[in-house]
Each structure stands twice: as structure tokens, then as C-alpha cells.
């Protein structure tokens, strides 16, 4: 039975660079996939593109391509990535430039676009899923709207002989499903196999999170050599069964436990995982350890794809101002609490207009609040005061941090290391769009 090996070279935009090089060098892979697009990334990239039309792709695109492009070209490894973000066409042009600087020839680069549906949504009658409000009512705050495209345009590019495929918003598992469809000739309505292929995509899309990253808990779940964590490889067979593994000698571990944690990562109902290509069913997946760092996956399936596409909508939500300051030594916690009281009163006195405020003592209660945090009776040696507030303007947001910083000369004794920040918040909501309203397009450039 035919098998292919797919490597996962990045699990988020800022991920480590060199594990992908290791995969290309020693992974015996035919495909190298980089998943680099978080919910908000594309909205921020859209703002960058508005300022400079040649930008708007992932900021680490050039670094990643410099690291792997020549190697992948020499070995015939195809690269698939969503690093195009808000501007896949400009991303493709950048890759061409890098290929030429290396003197590479016969490299076909495909840009998949058509996910940008901002104008469609502004003119349409779609509603925001979370709030039920019509999208059109927030038109002046909208930054971006991108539909999650499926595997089809990537499969088309592979058929056309593309060596590198760079996309905008595409469902993460589709980046991995596309080469499986292409290599095995699966039908686009073979729901069982598309479901299996989606399980593989889901397992690989966060890269190191299935090879021992985001897993270690010393004494309970030990993982060796996380500083040199190896990224995953899926060895997929024509019937959709797969083995998850990694490069021999790399750090980390592939075990049934690491696979189980990743199977349920960011999943709601495991029987109904919506993607543009299939509604995948993870509920009967089984894992079997068949060797060191080798886990067999079986039991995934799926049913007919949904009629609508999910759209990720970016908008200017608010501004957030923040200030922090530290206290140490005897009485640190009491001084920290006094500092919080002072800032609370100052914000009121000065009439800083906030719609939400939060007062934390880092080291005491900042993560889960009072109740869960009162475990030991010991007083920590140091605490860090943190005050954040949501405002309607950047100017007001700045005032929140100011009231923490001025604790230096106006607050409790020995406060140190004050920092402050204020930022615009681009937040994300979602909407559903009839499939036919998003029009995927594939453009090619050659080096």
C-alpha cells in the first residue's frame, strides 16, 4: 500500500525555526507543512498590508524559507503553508525572491487566496455568531473577515505541479489533508477518508505539541530534551491509517499519552469537528504504541461537509492599558495589596474612564483568583502588582499604567521595576457564510 510522510514544521507563527530543517534533512518526508496563523494573526497582518501593499504575510516567512527552501528544492520536498496571512500573493513573490537569491531554478510557487470576504460580509446580512448582531452594524470597526477555505485549492495547486504553496486563511487540518487527497486520489466526498485525513491534520497542526511539547510535568510526565524537541512526522497510508513519529535522536517523545492530549486539543464535541472539507468524527479514534516514538492512529471517520464556511471576523474592540510594579522582602504582599488599593482609588479620583478593570497580585492570585489560589499558608518572597483596564481610547488606556508607575514616589515603600503599556485591541468574532460566496483563487509565479 502506498504511504507518504508529512512533516509539521511549525505550530504557530513564532515557533522555533530549526526543527523544520531537521525534518527536511533527516525526516525522509515528501511534504513539509507550516501552520502559522492564529485567530488574530490575519487581522493584524491586514493592518500591515493597508500600510504597505507588499507586506501582510507572516513576519517570519523569509527566515523560515531561508532555512529550508534550498534543502526542500534539492530533495523534492513540497512546502505547504498558511504564512500568506493577509497577502499570499506578496508572500509568493517574497519566496520567489529568496529562491532566486539562492540560484534555484524550476521552482513553481502557488498563492492561494480568496479567503478575504470582508466586502461580501459588509454588504451581506450575516450575523455574528457570538452576539447575534448583524455584521453590517459593526462595519466601521471591521478590520478583516476571512473565510476558512478547505483543501481543494491546495490540491489544485499540487496537481498543477506547485513546489511551494502559500495560502491565507485555510482550515489548519486542510493544509495536511490536501497532500493526502492529492497523493491517494481520494474523492472530495469520501467522507470516511477525509475524516481520517483530518484526524492526522489535527494531530500535526500544532507541531511540537504532539512530540512532548506542552506536556512535561516533572515527576509525573517527564519528557527528555525539550530544548531540542523534534517536530512530528505522519506516515499516512492510502486507506487513511497513519503512524505518528519524529526524527530519530531528536528531543521529546511520541507516546499514546502525547497523542491523546493533542487529539482533544481545541476540540468541543469530538463526534462533530467542523471543517470546510468534512465533519470529522474523533470519538472512536484509538492509539497504539507500536515502537519507540511510533504511535499508530486508527478509527477516525467523517460525514458530509457543512453548507457554510466559518468566517473569522477581526474588529477594533477597545484599548487596554496596563501597569506593573514589584515588591519584595518582609511585608511584600501587604505592600502589594496597598498598592492595588491606591491605584483603584486613583483611577476613580482622576476620572479615568474604563469599562472593565482587573487588579492582580502576580505570585498570589493573578491566574485563577482568590479561591483556588489559597493553597499554602506561606507568604511568597516577592509579588508583582498588575492593574489592567479596558478603555475606549488609547489616551485613556495610557492613564491606567500611569497610575501604577507613579506608585514609585507616591505608593508603598520599596516598589521597583514598574512597567506600563497601552495598546489597541483587535479582537475576533465569527460568522457563517454560504460556501458559494467565497471564491478561492490560485496564482502561480516561477523562479
Amino acid at each position, binding site marked *: 500500500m502506498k504511504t507518504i510522510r508529512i512533516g509539521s514544521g511549525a505550530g504557530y507563527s513564532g515557533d522555533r525555526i530549526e526543527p523544520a530543517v531537521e525534518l527536511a534533512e533527516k525526516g525522509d518526508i515528501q511534504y513539509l507543512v507550516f501552520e502559522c496563523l492564529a485567530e488574530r494573526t490575519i487581522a493584524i497582518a491586514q493592518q500591515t498590508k493597508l500600510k504597505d501593499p507588499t507586506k501582510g504575510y507572516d513576519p517570519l516567512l523569509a527566515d523560515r524559507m531561508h532555512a529550508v527552501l534550498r534543502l526542500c528544492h534539492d530533495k523534492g520536498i513540497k512546502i505547504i503553508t498558511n504564512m500568506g496571512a493577509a497577502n499570499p500573493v506578496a508572500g509568493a513573490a517574497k519566496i520567489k525572491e529568496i529562491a532566486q537569491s539562492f540560484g534555484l531554478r524550476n521552482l513553481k510557487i502557488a498563492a492561494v487566496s480568496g479567503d478575504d470576504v470582508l466586502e461580501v460580509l459588509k454588504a451581506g446580512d450575516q450575523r455574528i455568531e457570538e452576539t447575534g448582531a448583524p455584521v453590517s452594524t459593526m462595519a466601521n470597526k471591521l478590520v478583516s473577515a476571512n473565510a476558512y477555505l478547505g483543501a481543494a485549492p491546495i490540491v489544485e495547486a499540487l496537481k498543477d505541479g506547485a513546489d511551494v504553496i502559500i495560502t491565507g486563511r485555510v482550515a489548519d487540518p486542510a493544509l495536511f489533508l490536501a497532500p493526502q487527497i492529492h497523493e491517494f486520489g481520494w474523492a472530495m466526498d469520501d467522507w470516511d477518508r477525509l475524516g481520517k485525513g483530518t484526524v492526522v491534520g489535527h494531530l500535526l497542526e500544532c507541531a511540537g505539541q504532539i512530540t512532548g511539547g506542552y506536556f512535561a510535568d516533572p515527576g509525573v510526565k517527564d519528557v527528555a530534551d525539550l530544548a531540542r524537541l523534534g517536530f512530528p512526522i505522519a506516515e499516512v497510508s492510502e486507506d487513511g491509517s497513519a503512524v505518528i513519529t519524529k526524527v530519530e535522536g531528536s528531543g521529546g517523545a511520541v507516546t499514546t499519552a502525547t497523542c491523546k492530549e493533542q487529539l482533544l*486539543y481545541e476540540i468541543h464535541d469530538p463526534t462533530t469537528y467542523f471543517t470546510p472539507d468534512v465533519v470529522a468524527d474523533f470519538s472512536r479514534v484509538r492509539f497504539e504504541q507500536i515502537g519507540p516514538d511510533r504511535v499508530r492512529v486508527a478509527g477516525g471517520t467523517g460525514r458530509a461537509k457543512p453548507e457554510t464556511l466559518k468566517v473569522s471576523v477581526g474588529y477594533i474592540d*477597545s484599548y487596554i492599558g496596563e501597569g506593573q510594579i514589584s515588591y519584595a522582602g518582609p511585608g511584600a504582599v501587604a505592600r502589594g495589596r496597598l498598592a492595588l488599593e491606591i491605584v483603584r482609588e486613583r483611577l476613580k479620583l482622576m476620572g479615568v474612564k474604563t469599562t472593565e478593570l*482587573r487588579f492582580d497580585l502576580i505570585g498570589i492570585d493573578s*491566574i*485563577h*483568583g482568590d479561591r*483556588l489560589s489559597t493553597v499554602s499558608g506561606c507568604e511568597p518572597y516577592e509579588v508583582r502588582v498588575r492593574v489592567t483596564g*479596558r478603555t475606549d481610547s488609547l489616551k485613556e488606556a495610557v492613564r491606567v499604567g500611569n497610575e501604577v508607575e507613579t506608585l514609585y514616589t507616591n505608593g508603598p515603600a520599596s516598589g521597583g521595576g514598574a512597567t506600563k503599556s497601552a495598546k489597541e485591541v483587535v479582537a475576533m468574532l465569527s460568522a457563517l457564510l454560504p460556501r458559494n460566496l467565497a471564491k478561492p483563487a490560485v496564482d502561480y509565479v516561477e523562479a
Partner: protein
Amino acid sequence: MKLRDIAHSRTGDKGDISNISVIAFDEKDYPLIEAYVTPARVREHFSEVVHGEVIRHTIPSIGALNFVMRNALGGGVTRSLALDAHGKCLASALLDLEIPDRIA
């Protein structure tokens, strides 16, 4: 005993929804976590943090539960004022649950 003695866990985020898996290290302990790690207990454990409903899905094929918690991430990962906006630390906090060592 603590849930951490027999299970491991991972948190994921989507908007204002957090999901936490609870996975038995040994699949023979699955009935125990199924019996005692109920949506009501999880809701109570996180009463200060989670403000919406808690739904539990079961995945017996891998000996795991999956909790889906609404209004759990301070209005959503992309706008939350929280230090841990993703709720990544929730999984470890859940493993602190005290549970009986056999089904009564």
C-alpha cells in the same frame, strides 16, 4: 487522592470557550474519572473563573473526558484582561481535584 495521580490534562481555547481534556493514564481508571469528574464538580471548581455552562463529552476509546466551558476566558482570548488570556493554566488547576480511589 488527587485527580493528578491517575489522569493528565490539556487546555485548548476558541474565543470565550475553554476546553479541558481529562485523560486516564491507565485506561482501566476511566470509569473512576467518568464517575467523579462530573460537569457539576468542574463548574464548582472553577466557579470564580468560568461563568457559563460546562458540558462534558466522553471518549471511552482513549479513556478520556472533554469539558467544554463557556464564558471562561474573560470575554475571549483576543480581548481578555487576564494574564493567562488563553486559559492555558486551567488544565493544571483541574488536576488538583480530590477524588475517591474507588467507585463507591
